[in-house]
């Protein structure tokens, strides 16, 4: 009788444990970053903390490949109507394109919504419309800018504390760097052109950049043309590292600049190729930053191009653990979770309560000053899935091969928004 009771008790306990145990599957394209400052280490910490706070829950964090393969895997999961509970997405076109397989988080996030910047909430809301369903919670904000190596500036006879802010100053700085034997701008494939153009265009249009999408702002506008022509000048004069365009991966360009091979690099604010990566590699006091290049005719100056959100987590419609999945998304993007991610990777969190590091990084302080000042939206994520593939093909053609003239290039750009 006692034996039977013990057995029954053990069986009930086993079943109870089994019922309570839940596995939450998370897919993302950052988890494979095992390098120092990479995303895997903080994500492991976040997962461990979440498991600690939710006994019986196991987080199965799966490293998936980067885009575009990542979204092909998401597409396959959607076809099968099964896959992860939580998945990482790029806010903007990618999120909106897959909006039908993401649940609306709006009712679940009212308690934390105010912690996020208005720009980030707007970006994760469907089609960028405030008040539309929120399908992701952002982990980072994103933007682009120009990092420079102060030691090389000094050797080239430039003032390392005064970055070249106007077009004329920038060209002169490139010339001096070149004359001193340095590559003026290290290149990471055609993304260097892509990012630089986004910096210039945002600076040219300031808060009016959305007009490029709705058609109220034509691409033939002199300011857009000036931005394109300026980048073309950099290519023609050989200021953009020529060999870098045939490199297979953008990440190679980041590594090159971090290894001290160039005077400047058009990098990101979060994720990869950011202030932390370069400061850690070349010395925190050796890295300078400026957000853009000012043209004489431009109404706006020193605008920091920014996406309210860079990457974010969403909950899939097919998840059988939606409540738990929402809890995980909130945990990773707010409070302790967001703080861990920001401090360990150098990502800038759109969550004002997240904190993060930054002390001892002058480049970050500079970025934060620009973020407080003029902020201009990045126009590229406003378009369709695969838009960047189309624009990068144009960047290949025009800037690298000279196959298209500046006017033809602009005409092609104009055509893209009608797709």
């Amino acid at each position, binding site marked *: 009788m006692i034996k039977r009771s013990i057995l029954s008790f053990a069986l009930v306990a086993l079943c109870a444990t089994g019922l309570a145990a839940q596995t939450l599957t998370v897919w993302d394209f950052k988890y494979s970053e095992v390098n120092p400052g990479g995303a895997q280490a903080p994500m492991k910490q976040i997962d461990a903390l979440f498991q600690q706070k939710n006994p019986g829950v196991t987080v199965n964090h799966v490293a998936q490949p980067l885009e*575009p393969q990542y*979204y*092909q895997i998401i*597409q396959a999961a*959607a*076809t099968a*109507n099964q896959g992860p509970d939580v998945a990482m997405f790029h806010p903007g076109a990618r999120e909106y*394109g897959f909006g*039908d*397989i993401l649940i609306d988080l709006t009712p679940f996030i009212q308690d934390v919504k105010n912690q996020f910047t208005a720009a980030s909430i707007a970006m994760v809301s469907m089609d960028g419309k405030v008040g539309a369903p929120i399908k992701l919670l952002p982990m980072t904000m994103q933007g682009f800018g120009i990092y420079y190596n102060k030691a090389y500036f000094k050797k080239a006879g430039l003032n390392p504390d005064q970055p070249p802010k106007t077009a004329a100053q920038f060209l002169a700085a490139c010339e001096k760097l070149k004359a001193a034997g340095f590559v003026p701008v290290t290149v990471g494939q055609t993304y260097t052109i892509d990012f630089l153009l986004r910096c210039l265009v945002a600076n040219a249009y300031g808060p009016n950049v959305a007009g490029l999408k709705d058609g109220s702002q034509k691409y033939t506008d002199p300011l857009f043309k000036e931005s394109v022509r300026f980048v073309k000048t950099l290519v023609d004069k050989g200021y953009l590292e*020529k*060999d870098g*365009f*045939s*490199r*297979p991966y953008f990440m190679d360009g980041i590594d090159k600049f971090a290894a001290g091979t160039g005077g400047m690099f058009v990098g990101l604010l979060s994720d990869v190729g950011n202030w932390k990566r370069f400061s850690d590699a070349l010395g925190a006091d050796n890295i300078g930053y400026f957000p853009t290049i000012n043209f004489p005719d431009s109404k706006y100056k020193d605008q920091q191009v920014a996406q309210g959100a860079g990457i974010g987590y969403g909950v899939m419609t097919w998840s059988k653990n939606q409540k738990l999945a929402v809890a995980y998304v909130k945990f990773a993007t707010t409070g302790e979770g967001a703080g861990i991610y920001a401090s360990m990777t150098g990502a800038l969190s759109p969550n004002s309560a997240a904190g993060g590091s930054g002390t001892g990084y002058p480049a970050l302080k500079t970025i934060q000053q620009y973020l407080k000042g003029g902020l201009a939206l990045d126009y590229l994520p406003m378009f*369709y*899935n*695969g838009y960047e*593939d189309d624009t*990068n*093909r*144009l960047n*290949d*053609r025009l800037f*690298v*091969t000279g*196959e298209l003239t500046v006017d033809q290039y602009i005409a092609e750009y104009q055509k893209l928004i009608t797709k």
Partner: protein
Amino acid sequence: MRNRGLERDGIAPYVFLAPLLVLLVAFILYPVIMNLVASFTEWKGYGPMKWIGLANYRSMLADQAFWTSIQNTAILVCYIPLSVAVTVFVSALLREGLRGWQVYRAVLYIPNLLGLVIIGVVFSIYLRDDGPINLTLRWAGGPTLRFLISPWLAINSIAIIKVIWIHLGFGLIYFLAAMNGIDPGVYEAAIIDGAGFFQTLWRVTVPSIRFAIEFWVVFNFIEVFARMFSLIYTLTQGGPGYATFTLEYGIFIQGFAKFRVGYSSAWAMVLFLFCAVISVVQIRLMRRSSV
């Protein structure tokens, strides 16, 4: 109504054929029909399909990228005669009993053992502006050849690597086997008549292996139309610009980068038509040769 075939042969042939027919229906016929249906819809690859009639075909015909992809595929097709000429010529050389020919054959076959992805990655390193080939050229005082940047060089590099170099090893095995079937007496007679290497090649070898050459041409067509993807994806990703953007690559980009599966199905129907025509030609050639 009596079934004469069933009466004559019994049920056994149908039972034996059934598994293959099931596979053909499941993996060939059904996807082709589904692709045709999808080409008339707006569809992301999941979720409901929205019927839009011929809109995808109209968009495709107005899409410059589609016509560029056809043009690029045509450039690759132009390399097929060269592939045939090179492969037959090298096979004939090896057949002549070139010293150490087994070693050459083995070395030339190596690319067939490597996957296209590996070859693509290796060449993306070799051909870049600061890769080993250009570093050697610079060291020798030559110019930098921008294989992956210049549109003209990029598409021609792809053609030389895939259509000629990779196929060469398999072609050698294939053509040497075909040449071994030629009566040695014919060659002896040609030599007695004073024919040199090129005359023997042109007057004896080529006519004798005509069927093998015809098959090789058809094989190359199918390779060019439907098996270039892995190399292009790993080497140039369709670029620079649209310079190596082929029909097959375009199907992938539309369907799996832009998630316009309905639209990419319209592109796939064009590829299907090309491959169907090639297959019909192949069947006719095989019938003619077996008469």
